[in-house]
């Protein structure tokens, strides 16, 4: 007997919230990408908890896809950050104003 699903949901929800707060509040592209990672991880925890609740393996299979998407997103995102830093000399999203 582990905890009820609502506690797993609360944990994943608060983790997702921390990630969302990071993405909206920090002015740093790398920290924003870290926030997206936290949100994806919260989703993965929720999927594993739901897989245990209903005894289905589908939830665990989905976590594999989440891992792959996270890896792809991070590699492309970090390459774009390196590019932006080369171009603008800063990773503050407020200073990317070349079009102004």
């Amino acid at each position: 007997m582990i905890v009820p699903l609502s506690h797993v949901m609360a944990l994943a929800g608060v983790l997702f919230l921390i990630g969302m707060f990071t993405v909206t509040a920090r002015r740093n592209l790398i920290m924003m990408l870290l926030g997206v990672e936290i949100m994806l991880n919260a989703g993965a925890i929720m999927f594993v908890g739901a897989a245990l609740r209903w005894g289905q393996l589908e939830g665990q299979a989905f976590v594999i896809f989440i891992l792959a998407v996270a890896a792809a997103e991070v590699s492309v995102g970090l390459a774009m950050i390196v590019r932006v830093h080369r171009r603008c000399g800063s990773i503050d999203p407020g200073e990317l104003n070349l079009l102004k």
Partner: protein
Amino acid sequence: MTLYSIIFYILGLEILVTTVLAVSRHDMVHAVIYLIMSFFGSALLFFLLGAPFLGALEVIIYAGAIMILFLFIVMMLNMKKTGKPDFPSTQWVPAAALSLCVLMLIGLLAFIDPSNHVPLESAMASPKAFGEFLFRQHWLSIEIISLLLLVALIGALALGRQAPGEPRKEESETPS
């Protein structure tokens, strides 16, 4: 209160504390290290919730590959010190308001359904059963995500290449 639930609460506390510490750091290297601790906690949570294979993958991919990639990038870019605050008030006030709304929604979703209050029975999906299920039922999706990873690899290579004649602002250090 069984042993499993005590482990769950300890792990949950560890994950939340290290994540909050990670997102509030000014130094990004510290943030990445704290986040690695948080992902170790998540991996143990996956073990507890009956997914040992995913727990291992979490350590290998999230903590081992993704976070180390972040660490490489943080050390590769030489960030200039800016005197700006980490959380400017024009941004954290709307973010906090948004978070409060979402928090209420999560509370509603998690606790309104009475069937969610049944304690979970512990079970385990062995890696062998999980792999067989994955490659029997979801073989097409596996092929698609392998293609996605290939596209991401090519995209990262193309984006990271230095284009000929591209101005490099970080060396000239002359803000216009």
